[in-house]
């Protein structure tokens, strides 16, 4: 029997407001919706990773009974492109396809089967072109050019001191190349929804996204209609993890709905989702790191090459993030980082929980462990000797909000149960199983960074029904945004949960808050409420005072209404009564502001950071190469915890997603085509793959004078896991893994290079 030990300072919590509807299936996902006269849409995607389109004939498809519309590039009235940073991805390809997810046509039909059949009847004549399936090949002068400006999407660098000179003075140097896989978000609900033409000439787009207003902006540009003609309803969603921030099926649904005048539903199959959906950037990272005998790191040189696939989406920002975090929480005098993000004919890579930080932290922490082994000092000690102090600048020399999070998480993890269990070796369940422990830390920026549009905002009002209505342009995809809003509102306003109505995910009734991304949701809700609560309470209290004759200074907001210091059992005046009294001039406060940024003009440079330390204990089966993570602990420093179970859920869920990244997951491509096409070959962790115990501790103290409140924790739990597991494998069997996911074959091969007898007799 296995036991879960569960210790955490995050006990005691509240149930999430959307929980009942989720367990009873009363909650309808947007892909669960159906409408009268609804048609079904299907998208025809390229059969080649790279080809010229000679001709497209839709005649046979159009003539199939039940088909109501077939669209190609000619049917796009506006800009036939989309993309979050700059629009370079065709909605429907005109003359060329650059990856197997490229759309060439789409169909609306009376049933899904007819739509499917119609796709087969569309005749597309292609002339295949040479396929670039490797970013290094894309950089060769002889490589075909995928875009007018060549094959380089973006380059970024950072330099301080002189690494070449500094390496001369190092006593020890470690150089290694790390390879990171193409991970799939694998949100359980694939992309989909319904687009409905309304009687008033507008359209309503019911489809999940992380930023309703951005979808509206991009759709207006494609459809060539004003944004005011589009309503985007975008929550709830069955997971996103960054993958639904970019447009997916919305343009096709909208074009088909407008053409047919009927609601059109598109819900991609998993296979279609794998083929067209975004992935995490595969990266090849070479790091050369040198230190003095005393364990002071003197020089750190980094080269990053990222495979961004066929189109840009958020590729440039992901690379900037990786470059920024390449030295992480360490203060190194000489640093040189160079990164390049390259177009290929592979699947499009874009935003994914961790945003380039996971890849670069895997390499950086790998360097720390290798260096410590070479120096013969404790890896924790090496980290400690080089760790940033609270007032140190950020990783690219920029001013940041002072934080001692790095030291806090390192200290907390060193006190963890796992690292203080002296008998770990004896716990092996068989002589063929070796156990080991590894630790890694991570630093992670929140928000989009310097120079990026990163506006936030919110609204609070007392609505006609007397509910305190709190509205944000954020989305709920499972992370627990609704709970965060509810808990913060109760705390900051003083009302009870029954007094609150939360409105999100509908561009017709929410203010602009920016994207639900970059661990910014919790943080921005807190900031917005700090700005709005004063004026909102003031107006309520003034009105209450006016109605009751009790001076404002003797009144306060409480459950159901305004209470006076005297009132014991019920409020002096209820919210409903105040709503009635203010019906001609409703109380409404709105705020707009910008995510806090560094004053230094470093593109993408962050100002607010969170930290995590992870300890993992693994068991490596030396006969099969199977690695099992037995225990996992994380210490997280991200400011005050608003919603404890949600916080834990983010770190636990993030840990398991990262465990998958480390041991199982790779959306494998060969010659530009996906080999892993569904969940039968793309393996994600099941309940049988998770650790026996996961202990999470939250460090809630902010550094003295820090007025920026809670940071989001959507990403930080995913960053330090892979390097900790890989170090634990080294600890168990002496193999330095450089490529993820960890290969069982590589382990068995490494094991076989030693005599079996030696494995049985040594405790490594």
């Amino acid at each position, binding site marked *: 029997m296995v036991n*879960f030990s569960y210790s955490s300072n995050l006990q005691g919590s509240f149930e999430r407001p959307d929980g009942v509807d989720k367990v009873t299936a009363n909650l309808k996902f947007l892909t669960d919706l159906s409408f009268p006269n609804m048609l079904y849409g299907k998208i025809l995607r390229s059969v080649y990773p790279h080809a010229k389109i000679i001709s497209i004939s839709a005649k046979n498809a159009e003539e199939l009974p039940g088909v109501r519309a077939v669209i190609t590039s000619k049917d796009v009235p506006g800009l036939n492109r989309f993309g979050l940073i700059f629009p370079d991805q065709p909605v429907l390809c005109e003359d060329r396809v650059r990856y197997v997810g490229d759309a060439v046509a789409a169909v609306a039909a009376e049933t899904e089967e007819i739509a499917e059949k119609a796709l087969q009847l569309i005749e597309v004549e292609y002339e295949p072109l040479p396929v670039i399936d490797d970013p290094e090949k894309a950089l060769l002068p002889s490589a075909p050019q995928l875009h007018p400006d060549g094959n380089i999407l973006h380059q970024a660098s950072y330099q301080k001191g002189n690494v070449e000179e500094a390496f001369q003075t190092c006593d020890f140097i470690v150089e290694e190349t790390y390879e990171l896989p193409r991970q799939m978000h694998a949100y359980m609900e694939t992309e989909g929804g319904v687009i409905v033409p309304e009687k008033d000439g507008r359209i309503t787009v019911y489809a999940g996204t992380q930023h309703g207003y951005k979808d509206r902006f991009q759709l207006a540009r494609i459809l060539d209609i004003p944004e005011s003609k589009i309503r985007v309803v975008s929550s709830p969603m069955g997971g996103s993890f960054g993958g639904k921030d970019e447009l997916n099926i919305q343009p096709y649904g909208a074009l088909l709905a407008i053409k047919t005048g009927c609601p059109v539903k598109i819900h991609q199959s998993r296979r279609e989702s794998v083929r067209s959906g975004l992935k995490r950037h595969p990266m090849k990272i070479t790091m050369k790191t040198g230190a003095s005998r005393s364990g002071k790191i003197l020089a750190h040189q980094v080269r990053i090459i990222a495979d961004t696939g066929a189109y840009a989406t958020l590729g440039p920002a992901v690379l900037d993030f990786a470059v920024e975090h390449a030295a992480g929480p360490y203060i190194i005098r000489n640093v040189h980082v160079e990164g390049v993000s390259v177009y290929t004919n592979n699947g499009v890579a874009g935003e994914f929980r961790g945003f380039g930080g996971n890849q670069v932290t895997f390499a950086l922490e790998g360097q720390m462990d290798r260096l410590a082994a070479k120096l013969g000092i404790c890896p924790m000690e090496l980290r400690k000797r080089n760790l940033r102090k609270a007032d140190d600048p950020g990783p690219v020399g920029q001013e940041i909000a002072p934080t001692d999070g790095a030291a806090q998480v390192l200290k907390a993890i060193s006190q963890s149960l796992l690292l203080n269990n002296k008998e770990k070796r004896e716990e092996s369940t068989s002589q063929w199983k070796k156990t080991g422990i590894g630790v890694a830390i991570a630093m992670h920026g929140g928000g989009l960074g310097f120079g990026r549009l990163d506006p936030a905002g919110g609204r609070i009002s007392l609505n006609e029904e007397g509910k305190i209505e709190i509205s944000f342009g954020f989305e709920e995809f499972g992370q627990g945004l609704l709970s965060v809003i509810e808990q913060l509102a109760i705390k900051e306003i003083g009302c009870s949960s029954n007094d609150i109505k939360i409105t999100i995910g509908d561009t017709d009734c929410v203010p602009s808050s920016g994207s639900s991304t970059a661990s910014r949701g919790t943080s921005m809700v807190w900031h917005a409420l700090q700005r709005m609560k004063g004026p909102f309470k003031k107006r309520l209290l003034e009105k209450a005072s006016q109605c009751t004759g009790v001076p404002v200074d003797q009144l306060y907001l409480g459950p159901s209404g305004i209470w006076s210091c005297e009132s014991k059992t019920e409020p002096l005046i209820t919210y409903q009564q105040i709503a009635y009294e203010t019906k001609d001039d409703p109380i409404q406060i709105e705020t707009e502001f910008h995510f806090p940024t560094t004053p230094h003009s470093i593109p993408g440079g962050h100002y607010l950071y969170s930290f995590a330390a992870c300890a993992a204990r693994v068991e490596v089966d030396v006969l099969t190469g199977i690695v099992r993570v037995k225990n996992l602990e994380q210490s997280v420093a991200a400011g005050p915890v608003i919603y404890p179970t949600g916080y834990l859920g983010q770190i636990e869920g993030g840990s398991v997603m990262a465990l998958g990244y480390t041991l199982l997951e790779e959306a494998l491509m060969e010659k530009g085509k996906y080999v892993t096409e569904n969940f039968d070959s793309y393996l994600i962790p099941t309940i049988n793959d998770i650790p026996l115990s996961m202990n999470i501790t939250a460090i809630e103290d902010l550094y003295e004078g820090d007025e920026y409140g809670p940071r989001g924790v959507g990403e930080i739990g995913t960053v330090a896991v892979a390097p900790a597991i890989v170090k634990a494998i080294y600890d168990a069997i002496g193999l330095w893994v450089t490529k993820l996911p960890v290969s069982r074959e590589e382990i068995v091969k490494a094991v076989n290079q030693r005599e079996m007898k030696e494995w049985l007799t040594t405790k490594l």
Partner: protein
Amino acid sequence: MKIRVKVNGHLFESDVEPRTLLVYYLRDELKLTGAHVGCDTTSCGACTVLFDGKAVKSCTVLAVQANGREVLTVEALDQEGQMHPLQTAFWEDHALQCGYCTPGMLMASYALLQKNPMPTEEEIREGLSGNICRCTGYMNIVKAVQSASRKMANETQESLEEVATSGTSTE
């Protein structure tokens, strides 16, 4: 093809295409959208329902196979406005985030507890290993099944005691 199938206690007579999968029959014909399709390769379990009391992935069962059978979906778990202890536990223990896998997870857990009312942690892991959750990391799902199992055991105990007490008083 004509089928007669009992779903959540109600008898339905429908004419379905022979190729129709049970999950699409439930979702599109009966508008029971709790069972979700996450993969269509029987890998994810989001479409899990009970088929004559046994948990099956309804994306791998034909609607015609349900002819003369009984199907139970998540929509029938709560009775007369009372949530099933599993539903309460999944909510209270935060065993869900996005909620897309939840109906399948609940039905797989329901089948597990029917067969084995007091499963060990290991048995819970085994019993739910065919259902994928991408959000939670599963720790709270194990906890929720444990607490539901305890609650159900207590309820059974209480009702037994009630019977015993009422038995004594009539004597």
